[in-house]
């Protein structure tokens, strides 16, 4: 006979094993070696937390009492998974793109990131699921008590409470350790998932082992078994059909709405393709889990003494046959079912409580903007840990208060009906864009109220909460409000009664209120994002133009998701925008991205509120409103993308066109230069040749000789100058120039330039402010003077005013200085401005200037070599050039 102590020892060893498994998985995941942790097999097995202790033990009891009806509980989820292409696929995609953390977050996020809806759903599931957790504690204590008192029905008082308490404490420890390890953006818990996958295997093996023992150990195979079934009290096919259909629907709906199922199905989903495998593997798992339920029930009814608890046949049948090892395995299976459910349910509930109740309240209390100072990350983690402890404590308290009796065994279906109230808001939210937050709230609250009144409160037993008189006559004698006979419809099974009425009222109110109300812009946008998730998974666009500083956002993000992750996100965003460093431009896209990343940790509503603090006063722009007001928002969005692309193309085309124009102009210039330079070379050459011929002939007087030699020399000088310029430019362009750095006053440089250029054009009047020019420079002063000479000479040559004036102005420009040369002529026309700095460019007719159009090109090259620049300065009333002095070299005079 197994002793109680041995049992405790085995259970503890098993728990220690689970801790080790979870720990190892976390370690591997931390090393990035999580490939196999992300396999479809693990995903499918993790879905098995649908099978709780209620199904492990209870299914047999259910079958013993109601025949094949237990199958509905498995068929519903099977159909949902086989039909994954309809709902589950969409939920998973939404969960992924919107970074959904829980079912409350899904509802809240869909309906405009509403805090109120998050709170409603959270309260609903806490109320509905806490008894369910209590049920798991009860099943653990019951299974322990079987070994103490094989009758099973009368648990030994003191040890029973101790078992429940220690189980709850141990589960809290495990959940806090592995469920709140990280606040990572995806809310995934590798350790927990692997642990529940292991537990899934344990409970399946346990049930199969008991089943095989029953069919082939006690019975004599399948045919014998079928004969026994037909001979048993549950042989008749006699269920009322409506209840079967109702229960199938209920279990299918609960499969989608149960927080723990949502957690493993959507939140922990690592890859959408896992669904393809799970679509057949999970129904297969359920089939195997339910395969031997009827044989065990039938044999249990056959062999066990009358009055023994059929819920515990899985344990008591092997025990009564003296198979202690099998009983132990079966015990571990039940234990696994209970613990895995409690762990995941607690994580899911704690996430909701902390994200939708604790953190929003905390944020509201600290509205004064001191958030940056506070450690949000720590607060969220603490909130989650406290929530885990609180949820488990609540379950334990419920277990103690309810006395652990029969009241609990019905709680499974009751909880199903409770969470199913979320279904209309959820399905409506992902398929119908017209669903509004008010509609969802109306449906949820009404369904919740009806469920509490007709099913939840009466489940505590007659007179426990609702007096028997009210049950019979209705509150204040209002007969049509009787909890089990709404509107006078009597005689329906209470679960079906509550489900039909609550779903009817819930769905109707949801639809009607949705149709009557008008959603706010954010709701419309989220609605479009959810309903059309497959068309554009691009992301939400929540904020318009904003003044939020990237640095503030980075500081906040670091507080929430940790420094490394936050910096990685900002770095990626900055790179995507083509910016160096960690601070991207705060574009609406970036805000939306950041909000989604944060939502992965603290939920959509909270993330929105937090980001909102920094983007205050800039919620939704007019463009956004137009985008959502139009029913074809998706088309608009698509065409906006196209527009952006075509704008980009147009821009590129514009640049190409400009480049082409410039090339054409340059080519024209080059042609004209070639003819120009041949002309320039030819004219002096011609006169040199002509006069040298005259001189050679020798029949000229000395005075004429003198004159002709002078002409020949002038022309030779002109040729030399031209060739010098060409050579100079070539040297500058190829960077072979040597700079002779020296210190000197800017004023002196300008003086030298003026005097060098001066003699040739006395007509030009110079306006200078010599005081401004007292600037110390350290650069190649000769070259700088060359630039100035060129500019002054240009003004002399080209300024076409009657009374030409050249202003030379020195101004501070940022860290350096700029020298502007502004004349009062007609200036340079815009189409010429882009080519004046090119080689060979000459604007006026060739004869007048006497240069080859190389001056400005040389100036530009010189200034580039000196580290400064020269530009045409438009809008000054005449031709104006700005010489930017090299920054590091300009120093104010001491």
């Amino acid at each position, binding site marked *: 006979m197994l002793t109680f102590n041995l049992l405790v020892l085995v259970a503890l060893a098993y728990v220690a094993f689970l801790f080790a498994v979870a720990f190892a998985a976390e370690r591997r995941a931390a090393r990035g070696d999580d490939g196999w942790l992300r396999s479809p097999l693990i995903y499918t097995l993790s879905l098995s937390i649908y099978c709780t202790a209620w199904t492990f033990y209870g299914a047999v009891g259910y079958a013993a009492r109601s*025949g*094949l009806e237990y*199958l509905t509980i498995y*068929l519903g989820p*099977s*159909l*949902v998974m*086989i*039909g*994954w*292409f*309809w709902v589950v696929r969409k939920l998973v995609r939404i969960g992924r793109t919107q970074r959904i953390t829980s079912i409350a977050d899904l509802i809240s996020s869909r309906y405009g990131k509403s805090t109120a809806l998050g709170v409603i759903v959270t309260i609903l599931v806490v109320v509905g699921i806490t008894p369910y957790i209590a049920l798991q504690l009860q099943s653990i204590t019951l299974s322990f008590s079987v070994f103490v008192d094989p009758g099973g029905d009368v648990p030994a008082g003191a040890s029973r409470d101790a078992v429940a308490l220690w189980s709850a404490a141990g589960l809290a420890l495990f959940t806090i350790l592995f469920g709140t390890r990280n606040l990572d953006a995806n809310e995934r818990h590798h350790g927990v998932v692997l642990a529940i996958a292991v537990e899934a295997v344990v409970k399946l093996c346990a049930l199969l082992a008991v089943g095989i023992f029953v069919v082939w150990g006690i019975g004599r195979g399948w045919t014998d078994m*079928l*004969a026994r*079934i*037909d001979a048993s009290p*549950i*042989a*008749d*096919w*006699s*269920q009322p*059909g409506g209840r*079967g*259909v109702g229960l*199938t629907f209920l279990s299918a709906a609960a499969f989608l709405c149960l927080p723990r199922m949502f957690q493993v199905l959507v939140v922990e989903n690592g890859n*959408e*393709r896992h669904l*393809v*495998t799970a*679509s*057949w593997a999970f*129904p*297969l798992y359920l*089939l195997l889990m339910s*395969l031997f339920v*009827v044989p065990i029930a039938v044999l249990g009814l056959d062999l066990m003494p009358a009055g023994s608890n059929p819920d515990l046949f899985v344990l008591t049948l092997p025990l009564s046959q003296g198979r202690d090892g099998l009983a132990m395995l079966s015990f571990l299976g039940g234990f696994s079912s209970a613990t895995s459910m409690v762990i995941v349910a607690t994580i899911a509930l704690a996430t909701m409580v902390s994200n939708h109740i604790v953190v929003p309240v905390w944020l509201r209390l600290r509205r004064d903007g001191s958030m940056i100072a506070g450690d949000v990350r720590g607060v969220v983690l603490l909130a989650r840990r406290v929530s885990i402890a609180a949820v488990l404590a609540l379950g334990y308290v419920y277990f103690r208060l309810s006395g652990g009796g029969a009241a609990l065994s019905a709680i499974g279906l009751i909880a199903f009906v409770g969470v199913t109230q979320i279904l209309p808001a959820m399905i409506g939210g992902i398929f119908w864009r017209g669903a509004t937050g008010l509609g969802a709230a109306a449906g949820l609250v009404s369904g919740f109220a009806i469920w509490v009144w007709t099913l939840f409160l009466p489940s505590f037993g007659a007179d426990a909460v609702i007096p028997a008189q009210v049950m019979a006559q209705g509150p204040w004698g209002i007969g049509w409000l009787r909890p089990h006979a709404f509107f006078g419809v009597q005689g329906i099974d209470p679960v079906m009664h509550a489900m039909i009425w609550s779903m009817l009222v819930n769905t109707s109110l949801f639809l009607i209120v949705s149709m009557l109300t008008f959603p706010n812009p954010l709701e419309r946008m989220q609605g479009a994002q959810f309903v059309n998730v*497959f*068309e554009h998974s691009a992301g939400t666009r929540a904020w318009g133009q904003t003044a939020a500083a990237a640095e503030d956002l980075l500081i906040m993000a670091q507080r929430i998701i940790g420094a490394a992750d936050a910096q990685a996100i900002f770095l990626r965003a900055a790179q995507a925008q083509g910016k160096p460093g960690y601070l991207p431009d705060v574009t609406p896209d970036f805000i939306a991205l950041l909000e989604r990343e944060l939502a992965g940790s603290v939920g959509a509503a909270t993330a929105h509120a937090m980001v909102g603090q920094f983007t205050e006063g800039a919620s939704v722009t007019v463009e956004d409103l137009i985008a959502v007001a139009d029913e074809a928002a998706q088309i608009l969005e698509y065409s906006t993308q196209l527009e952006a692309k075509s704008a980009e193309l147009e821009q590129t085309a514009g640049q190409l066109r400009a480049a082409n124009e410039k090339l054409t102009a340059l080519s024209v210039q080059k042609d004209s230069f070639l003819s120009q330079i041949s002309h320039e070379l030819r004219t002096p050459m011609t006169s040199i040749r002509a006069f040298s011929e005259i001189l050679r002939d020798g029949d000229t007087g000395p005075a004429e000789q003198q004159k002709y030699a002078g002409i020949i020399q002038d022309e030779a000088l002109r040729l030399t100058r031209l060739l010098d310029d060409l050579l100079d430019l070539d040297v500058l362009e190829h960077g072979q120039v040597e700079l002779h750095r020296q210190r000197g006053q800017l004023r002196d440089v300008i003086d030298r330039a003026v005097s060098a250029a001066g003699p040739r054009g006395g007509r030009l009047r110079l306006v200078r402010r010599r005081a401004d020019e007292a600037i110390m420079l350290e650069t190649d002063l000769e070259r700088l003077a060359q630039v100035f000479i060129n500019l002054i000479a240009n003004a002399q040559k080209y300024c076409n005013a009657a009374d030409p004036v050249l202003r030379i102005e020195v101004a501070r420009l940022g860290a350096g200085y700029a020298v502007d040369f502004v004349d009062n002529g007609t200036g340079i026309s815009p189409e010429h401005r882009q080519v004046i700095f090119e080689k060979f460019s000459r604007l006026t007719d060739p004869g007048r200037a006497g240069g080859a159009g190389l001056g400005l090109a040389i100036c530009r090259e010189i200034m580039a070599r000196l580290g400064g620049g020269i530009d045409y300065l438009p809008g000054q009333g005449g031709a104006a050039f700005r010489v930017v002095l090299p920054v590091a070299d300009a120093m104010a005079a001491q």
Partner: protein
Amino acid sequence: MPKPPPPLFLGRASYRQRRLRDAVRLLPVAGAVGCMIPLLWPRGAEGPGNGLALLYLFGLWAGLIAAAFILSRAMRPEDDTDAAEGE
């Protein structure tokens, strides 16, 4: 030697994939209908009995799982583009 038929304009492979998706969508409906068939059976003593019902339901279930398995093998999740859904 008979000439092979000219290739259809629409891609055969992607057309087959879309029909596979239809089949995946249809499967749960078929399953639900199948689950409701036992409701038509006569109840009580002249009914087929729970043994037969058990066999039927598990047979249906296993059939659905097998169908889902085959479909999941045939489906290529890579081209998850619903843009082609309009045919």
